[in-house]
């Protein structure tokens, strides 16, 4: 029953979304409000139906309904309860449902929020969002149906990919998809702006918070993905420049560029075409990311022809790009703005540079990611483009961006006077250079790390200086320290929210630099009772034990870790053997610390437990990435607080 019910709901939802999209477009052209209301109802209907689909699939997972193919592939009777729920988005079909559901949810929020506002935009926004939802529902109907029936019904399922049986996989896709789908809202408003010809700043003002929220969730999703990679995959890193990761970071980079360049338009009425281009690119990249990761094309260009999903996504991507840029070209005459720049030393030009670097980084990642496909298609030779390439090209760009991060917010609009430059940058530059010199004296020889330290200290200096000055100014009007600080954060929440986000990025940058420069590794085989030393830690192998778990067989090693100070700890890295997997899965054990993590992976071992090979790492400053995520969260929260005027 479940497969048929789910399939029916999908088809009806598709019909509703398509109808809603067309009806509200007609309403946009003719101004017939009855049609708008009708497509609003369709939007609510789509949300209810997709929610129903999701619940139905969860129900199928919880009741082990193996008549649903997707359930049979992604779960078995041993899969623990929570993972049976999250198995929902464990593979392609289910993650498309999650995507569609979030899109439907965002549409619902847009309906609730803007029903009585922006009457010119609203029908077009609705039309764009429901059109996109219709596409995803079409994918759910034809190339990737989650409710496909499986006959005969097998007695047990295959089981969820063991690597996905982790808490990170509960939150990572949710955050990432909230980010991906979140960019639909600014995109839809941009389309509405183009369709109505109201290409002023209205769409930017309305969508600023939406862009920030989507950007934040994408960042959060990337960080959680890094955390998952770090503590699950057992390689001791968090970012591998894997095509899947690249696909997610692409819209984040262009989204970051967008967040900055809209400020120029708000302030100076320039870059209208560029901002529309960026929002179109960012949204298209979210679709491209799904195409890249879900079509199988990454494995080989030949995988493309095996399923139709790739063709669907590529077709949709072409449609999106064609429609958007045609609209843009159509409105070009209204978009041409008189650019006006008084000086190269101005915030405008720093922001332009910021955009060039971010888009260049995005382009590099894009080109590097698709290059293997290009090589295979053109020459028939498979090549890999991995970390060595991406690091070489991107590190200079990111360092440049760090420095701009300090300059941009404080340099004056239009024309920075020598006084402005001296006042804001002399001290921070001095402190940054001094920090690098001190670090060098302390024995840090890696020039990239030194540059990173200098940049981070410089940027922090600019932020602290600016904030202190502003607090002092408020104190002069009679506030106490606390009142002045809070008042400032509240009154200028957008500015200081941005600063806090910048600080978060700085913390992440230090984590990346530190972990790459200072982490230690060793690999060795120990007999029972023997120990190995690394970075002041002594790790002793105490033995192995085997156990039968609910859905796998597990061999656990016991290792005593002591450091010079005399504190002792026991780590239990393990190997898990799943019936559905050829190779065992390493289960890492670790102790996290602010400065360094002890990270232990169990390799080969003697069956009698007399010997074990281990990969031991002392990873430095990795925790700063997660801390940076926390700071990002605070900053984003501050930046999207409601305006004071409206709140009052």
């Amino acid at each position, binding site marked *: 029953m479940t497969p048929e019910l789910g399939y029916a709901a999908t088809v009806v939802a598709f019909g509703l979304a398509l109808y809603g999209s067309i009806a509200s477009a007609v309403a946009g052209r003719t101004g017939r409000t009855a049609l708008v209301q009708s497509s609003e109802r369709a939007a609510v209907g789509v949300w209810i139906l997709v929610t129903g689909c999701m619940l139905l699939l969860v129900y199928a997972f919880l009741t082990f309904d193996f008549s649903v193919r997707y359930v049979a592939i992604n779960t078995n009777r041993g899969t623990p309860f929570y993972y049976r729920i999250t198995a929902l988005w464990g593979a392609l079909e289910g993650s498309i449902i999650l995507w569609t559901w979030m899109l439907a949810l965002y549409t619902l929020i847009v309906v609730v929020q803007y029903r009585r506002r922006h009457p010119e935009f609203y029908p077009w926004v609705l039309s764009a969002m429901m059109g996109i939802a219709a596409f995803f529902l079409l994918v759910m109907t034809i190339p990737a149906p989650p409710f496909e029936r499986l006959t005969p019904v097998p007695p047990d399922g295959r089981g969820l*990919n063991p*690597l996905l049986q982790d808490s990170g996989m509960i939150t990572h896709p949710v955050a990432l998809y909230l980010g991906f789908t979140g960019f639909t809202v600014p995109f839809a408003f941009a389309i509405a702006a183009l369709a109505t010809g109201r290409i002023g700043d209205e769409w930017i003002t309305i969508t600023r918070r939406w862009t920030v929220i989507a950007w934040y969730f994408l960042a959060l999703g990337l960080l959680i993905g890094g955390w998952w990679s770090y503590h699950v*995959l057992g*390689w001791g*890193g968090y970012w*591998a*420049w*894997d*095509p*899947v990761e690249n696909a997610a970071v692409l819209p984040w980079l262009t989204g970051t560029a967008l967040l900055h360049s809209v400020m120029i338009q708000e302030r100076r009425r320039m870059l209208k075409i560029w901002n529309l281009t960026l929002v179109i690119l960012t949204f298209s990249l979210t679709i491209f990311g799904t195409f890249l990761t879900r079509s199988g094309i990454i494995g*080989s260009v030949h995988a493309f022809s095996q399923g139709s999903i790739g063709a669907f996504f590529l077709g949709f991507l072409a449609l999106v790009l064609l429609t958007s840029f045609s609209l843009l070209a159509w409105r070009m005459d209204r978009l041409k703005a*008189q*650019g*006006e*720049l*008084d*000086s*190269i030393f101005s*915030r405008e*030009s720093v922001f*332009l*540079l910021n955009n*060039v670097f971010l*888009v*260049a980084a995005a*382009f*590099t990642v894009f*080109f*590097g990611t698709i*290059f293997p496909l*290009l*090589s295979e298609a*053109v*020459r028939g*030779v*498979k*090549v*890999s*483009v*991995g*970390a*060595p*390439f991406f690091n070489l*090209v991107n590190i200079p*760009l990111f360092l440049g961006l760090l420095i701009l991060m300090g300059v941009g917010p404080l340099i*004056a*609009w*239009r*024309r920075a006077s020598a006084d*402005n430059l001296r006042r804001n940058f002399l001290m921070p530059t001095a402190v940054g250079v001094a920090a690098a010199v001190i670090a060098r004296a302390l024995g840090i020889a890696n020039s990239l790390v030194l540059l990173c330290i200098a940049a981070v200290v410089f940027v922090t200096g600019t932020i602290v200086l600016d904030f202190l000055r502003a607090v002092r*100014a408020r104190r002069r009007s009679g506030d106490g320290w606390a009142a002045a600080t809070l008042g400032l954060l509240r009154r200028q929440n957008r500015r200081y929210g941005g600063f806090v986000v910048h600080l978060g990025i700085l913390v992440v940058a230090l984590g990346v630099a530190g972990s790459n420069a200072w982490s230690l*590794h*060793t*690999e060795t085989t120990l007999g029972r009772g023997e120990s190995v030393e690394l970075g002041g830690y002594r790790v002793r192998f105490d033995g192995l034990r085997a156990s039968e778990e609910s859905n796998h067989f597990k061999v656990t090693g016991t290792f005593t870790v002591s450091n010079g100070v005399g504190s002792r700890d026991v780590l239990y890295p393990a190997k898990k053997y799943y019936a559905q997997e*050829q*190779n065992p899965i390493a289960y*890492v054990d670790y102790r996290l610390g602010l400065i360094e993590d002890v990270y232990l*992976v169990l*390799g*080969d071992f003697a069956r009698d437990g007399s010997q074990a090979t281990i990969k031991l790492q002392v990873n430095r400053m990795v925790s700063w990435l997660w801390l940076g995520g926390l700071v990002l969260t605070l900053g984003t929260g501050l930046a999207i607080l409601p305006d004071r005027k409206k709140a009052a």
Partner: protein
Amino acid sequence: MSHPPLTRLAAAALLVVMAALPALAAAPVNEDTVREIGTELRCVVCQNLSVADSPSETANQMRAIIRERLAAGETPEQVKAYFVEKYGLWILLSPPKQGFNLLVWIVPFVGLGLGLVLVAFTVRRWSRRPAAVPAGIPEMDAATRDRIHREMADIDRS
């Protein structure tokens, strides 16, 4: 993440290689060199991890091969060439900077260069034009204009 057939084939090839390797006398090999070579090679059964990073048994065996070949007196280039011969260019985590593959190394920089040129061009064009005065608004004298700019800049700064 099931392994595509190619990686499985690669793994099988690896076993053959392992069997064919002569038993080599253990000579001290610099582990940093092993790691360095490992970071440039792809672990054949992994998603996208280097031989140096991957915790998989296959990567472990590949590291052993690197160690043994170095011990036998091969240079890092020879070791890498050996893997390329066995698995194709695909085994290298970044393609060699020659021929068609040169593209991937050059195009990003060309893109960045074009972007910078575009910005420089835009900046020049915008700077050259005289500051436009919106039509319909009475002319404003230079002093007033400057004062407004100054005060706006002050507002920005606070």
